[in-house]
Every structure is written in structure tokens, then in C-alpha cells.
């Protein structure tokens, strides 16, 4: 026995002696994947159980996810399991065979107190795991918001980023001939639902902007003859003029903390940028140049402001400190002109409108880093302008107007586009539309 042990030990030592020098000859293969597929994720969303409202909620969730360009809801006619909504866990094979990678199941039930109990689960079909599941209780009239909140939860679980579906858009609705255009402030959900007008059209209104923290809008109105910046409370319908300035005020925009409004004040043809504290109503002058300084937009940390100015001869973008010091030009493309800069809510980019330069006689919507590098054009056209960011900094909306016809009218509509420059979609409005402003996620 001892001999056998000795012999085995000898063999093992011999094998080890053989193996060691061979290790350096080969390594585990390694592969780098660099070239991803940018197609949307196939997702199955069988109709939630619970009657008509469940059907409607399924439609809203599916439409939200589809419009984001990141998801591809599969045709329900391809579903093998016709009774999937309440099956927990799902029969994953039924979803694999139709190439679904994600599955959403949900139920809607009426409670004794008249409220709805809504629950949904998101499943990873390939990994056979539940990824998230949430239950909500709500009043029946809130069904649409709950559907948007569900779509936001799915979007966040898959991308890591907050969603933007439970948001609203305020914009300028336009009707009538070019020389007698009626412009009204209007508001709708980001998907076009729940549309309503906020002003009656008697006064010209322009450039609405959402407060990042309250249900308030700041905008320009000619209600008293002279263009002035107003504050409008969506919940109460109250309006008030902002500030007591001698000249005309325009191009308002809230600071990210919601405590101030940045705007331009024009006196004798010279426009400068001011900051108005909404609590003290004190105004502070931030620029002091003989040029036209306008369209201010603060960075998310509130430390810097981007604006456009023709102080260098043509209209360009500049970034300065929040107190107005140290302005630096950031836009450079030949004779191109830049305007309406908007700082991204996530801070990494500034969106703008551009005319000319390397694009010739066209308008475009683009983004660049706050230091002016990495300029990318996302959309071009006869007239595209006025970008506004989704609260997660991933999607932009802007105005796209077609060539004017013989009567001087051009079709004007709002479009959304992904930050990657893909997935441009019209946002359906009842009439011509311009100047969209995206709300933060609703409270």
C-alpha cells in the first residue's frame, strides 16, 4: 500500500512538472465586443387583467415604451399564452419562442371603496427572473398617470435612468393667417393626452418655460401692450407680471432650484441678462455689454449660465459664472449663428438652435459639451428651433416648421428626438404648435 502511495505521489509530481512549463503557452481566450446592436428591446406586454381600464392602461404603457425608441412592444397576435396577465411566474418558454426578452404582466382590480388596485411585474424572459414589481392604489380617474408611472418604472429598471413619461408639455398653440396669428398657451401630457388651453388667445404669448419645482410657468405675454415676463400658476390659473422693469422683458427661464427667473431686459435697443429672485423680487444685472445678450439658461448646479450674444459680431453661445463674471465663447463654426441654448438637466450637454455654418442655409438642433467641444447635430430643416430637454436629459423636443405657402403659412409642429439623433417623432397637437417646454416629473 505504501508503495502504491509512493508511486502515485511520483506520478503526481511528474504531471505537475510537466504541466507547469506549459502554462505560459496558452491562456483562456478573451474577446472584446465593441460594436453593439442599437435596435430596441423586444418586450411583450399582454393585456392586463381587469376589463376596459386595464386594456387602456396596457395601451398607454406600451405606447410610452415604444415611443422612447428603446423598446419594441411585440404584436399581441403572436402571443402563445393568451391568459398571461395573471400567470405568476410566467411560462417563460411561451415568450422565448416569440423572441421576447422582457415581459410585463399586470392586473387592475376595483376595491370596495371605489379605488383601483393596480399591480405589475417586469420579467426577464431569458434569465427567468422577476426584475421589478409594484402595486399602486389610486382613484379611477388617475389611471392614465399610473400607467405613465408604470412605464417610468420599467424604463428606469432597464436603463438605470429616471423615466420621463409622467410629465407634461406646455407650448404655444397657433391658428389663423400669418398676419393675424392667434397664439395661445396650451398644456398636455407628454403623449398628447389631456390637452387644454391656458390662455384665451387675446394676447400674444411666447416662450413658456416650466418651473423645475412647482406647477408654475414663466412666459412672455403682450397682455398689457408691452412684452413682459409673466408667471402663471397651472393649478390656480393666476397670472402676474414678474418684476417692475422700465423696458421690455423677454426670454425667461427658471433656475434649476426654481428660486429665480433669468430673463433679458431691453432698454433703448440694448438687451442685458438679469436674475430675478422670486422670494425677494429683487433683480440683479448679470451682463453689461452694448450687444444683445439673451436666452439665459443655468447649469443644473446653478454655478454657470449659458446665453447667446452678438458681442463678437455674430450671434454666438457664451458661458459665464452665475454672477455674470468670466464670460467665454463656446460656439465656433465659421459664419454659423447660434441661439436658444438650454443646459441639459444632467449637466453634460447644452442643446441649441443653429443656422448656417457647415450646414449651409439650414436650421438645425444640436448639442455640445459646456466647454463647446463635441458638437453634434440631431435634426435639421427649413426651420427647426427652440429645444427643450426631458427631465432625464435623454430626449429633446423642438419646433419644426415647413416652408411657407402662398398665404404665408407654414405647417408648424412639435417633434421629439433622442439624444443619439435617432427616433424623431411628431408630438400630435390639435393645431399648429411651437415653443414646447418640458415639465419635470410630476409630483
Amino acid at each position, binding site marked *: 500500500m505504501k508503495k502504491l502511495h509512493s508511486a502515485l505521489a511520483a506520478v503526481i509530481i511528474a504531471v505537475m512538472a*510537466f*504541466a*507547469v512549463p*506549459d*502554462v505560459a*503557452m*496558452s491562456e*483562456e*481566450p*478573451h*474577446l*472584446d*465586443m*465593441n*460594436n*453593439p*446592436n*442599437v*435596435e*430596441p*428591446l423586444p418586450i411583450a406586454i399582454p393585456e392586463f387583467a381587469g376589463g376596459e381600464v386595464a386594456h387602456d392602461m396596457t395601451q398607454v404603457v406600451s405606447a410610452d415604451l415604444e415611443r422612447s425608441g*428603446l423598446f419594441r412592444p411585440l404584436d399581441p397576435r403572436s402571443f402563445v399564452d393568451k391568459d398571461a396577465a395573471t400567470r405568476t*411566474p410566467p411560462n417563460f418558454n411561451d415568450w*422565448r419562442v416569440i423572441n421576447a*426578452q422582457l415581459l410585463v404582466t399586470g392586473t387592475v382590480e376595483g376595491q370596495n371603496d371605489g*379605488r383601483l388596485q393596480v*399591480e405589475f*411585474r417586469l*420579467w*426577464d424572459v*431569458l*434569465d*427567468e*427572473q*422577476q*426584475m*421589478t*414589481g*409594484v*402595486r*399602486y*392604489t*389610486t*382613484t379611477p380617474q*388617475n389611471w392614465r*398617470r*399610473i400607467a405613465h*408611472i408604470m412605464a417610468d*418604472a420599467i424604463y428606469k*429598471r*432597464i*436603463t*438605470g*435612468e429616471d423615466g420621463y413619461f409622467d410629465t407634461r408639455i406646455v407650448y404655444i398653440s397657433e391658428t389663423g393667417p400669418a398676419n393675424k396669428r392667434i397664439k395661445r398657451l396650451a398644456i398636455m401630457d407628454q403623449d398628447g393626452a389631456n390637452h387644454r388651453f391656458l390662455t384665451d388667445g387675446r394676447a400674444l404669448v411666447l416662450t413658456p418655460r416650466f418651473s423645475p419645482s412647482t406647477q408654475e410657468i414663466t412666459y412672455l405675454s403682450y397682455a398689457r401692450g408691452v412684452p413682459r415676463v409673466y408667471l402663471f400658476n397651472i393649478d390656480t390659473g393666476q397670472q402676474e407680471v414678474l418684476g417692475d422693469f422700465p423696458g421690455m422683458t423677454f426670454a425667461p427661464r427658471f433656475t434649476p432650484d426654481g428660486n429665480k427667473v433669468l430673463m433679458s431686459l431691453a432698454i433703448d435697443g440694448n438687451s442685458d441678462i438679469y436674475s430675478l429672485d422670486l422670494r425677494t423680487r429683487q433683480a440683479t444685472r448679470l451682463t453689461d455689454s452694448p450687444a444683445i445678450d439673451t436666452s439665459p439658461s443655468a447649469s443644473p448646479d446653478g454655478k454657470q449660465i449659458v446665453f447667446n450674444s452678438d458681442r463678437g459680431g455674430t450671434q454666438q453661445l457664451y458661458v459665464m459664472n452665475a454672477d455674470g463674471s468670466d464670460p467665454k465663447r463656446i460656439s465656433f463654426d465659421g459664419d454659423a449663428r447660434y441661439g436658444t441654448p438650454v443646459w441639459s438637466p*444632467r449637466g*453634460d450637454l447644452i442643446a441649441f438652435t443653429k443656422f448656417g455654418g457647415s450646414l449651409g442655409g439650414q436650421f438645425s438642433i444640436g448639442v455640445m459639451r459646456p466647454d463647446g467641444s463635441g458638437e453634434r447635430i440631431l435634426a435639421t430643416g427649413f426651420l427647426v428651433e427652440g429645444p427643450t430637454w426631458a427631465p432625464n436629459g435623454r430626449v429633446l423636443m423642438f419646433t419644426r416648421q415647413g416652408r411657407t405657402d402662398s398665404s404665408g403659412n407654414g405647417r408648424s409642429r412639435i417633434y421629439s428626438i*433622442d*439624444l*443619439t439623433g435617432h427616433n424623431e417623432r411628431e408630438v400630435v397637437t390639435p393645431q399648429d404648435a411651437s415653443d414646447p417646454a418640458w415639465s419635470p416629473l410630476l*409630483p
Partner: protein
Amino acid sequence: MPAPPPEKPTPPAKKKEDMLTDAMLANLAKRSPVDSQEKAQKQTAAAEQRASDQPRARLGPQLTTSELDTIREQLRPCWLVDVGARDAQSLTPEFRVFMNPDGTIRDATQLNPERNSDPFFQAAAEAARRALHNPTCQPLKLPPEKYDLWKTFTITFAPKIQ
């Protein structure tokens, strides 16, 4: 496979009186009968992973560049990436892949799971895992006689975004 911990409730911002988030729903997925088989395979895979941390003896030729390209081309359609994610190029999950002799992927273990605390990284890692688990991109067309060379390999998903 252990169930993931329940998700945290949605932020208080959503908690209006008439719209309460009652509960995050626990993972109710019950494991199917094939789980015990899967578990055994995963234990084998885990053992192989530990083994792979040790020096390994290999004889014969290496995988050729074109064979590696084959894997790349086959997996690419299943690697669906959110290129709009912030700093998408820095989201680089790595996996060790355990292969069956027929070219199908038996299991894949993430080698840098500690980075999944960043939700963007977690999203990228899950997208990579879906690519490796998607049956439509398998079996990988690799020479069976070289199975010993490709029975495990490591893979990094590092998107280059234009």
C-alpha cells in the same frame, strides 16, 4: 439562482393620498423542475471558474482570430445596447462564459459585479447577460475538435459609440 432583493418603494413624490404605492411585489417566480439540473450545471461552472483562476495546462493551437471573430459576429445581434446612457463607453461588464460541447452557452458569470451598484452599469451588465443567454445567437460556430480551447472564455462588452 437566488432571487434578487425586493426593490425599494417608489419615491415619496408619488405618494399622493389618492395614488399610493402599496408595495413592491416580491419575486414570486418559482423555480421550474429544470432548476435542479441548472443548479448542478452552475455548481460545475462555479467549480470551473475557481479552477480557471489557477494556471491551466493546454496543448495544441490557440483559437484563431477568425474563430474569435465568429463568436463576436454571432453574439452581436443579441447585444442590444442603450447607446444614449450617460458615459455609455465606460460601462464595460466582463463575463466568464462556460460552454457546452455543442456550442451553446451553459452559463456566464460576471467578473466585475461590484460595479453593478451603479444602476447604469447594472443596466449594461444585464444587457450583456441577455446577449449571452439569448438562444437565437447560439450555438456558436466553433470547431468541435478545439472544445478544450473554447470551453471557457472571458468576454468584455465595451461599446464604442460614434
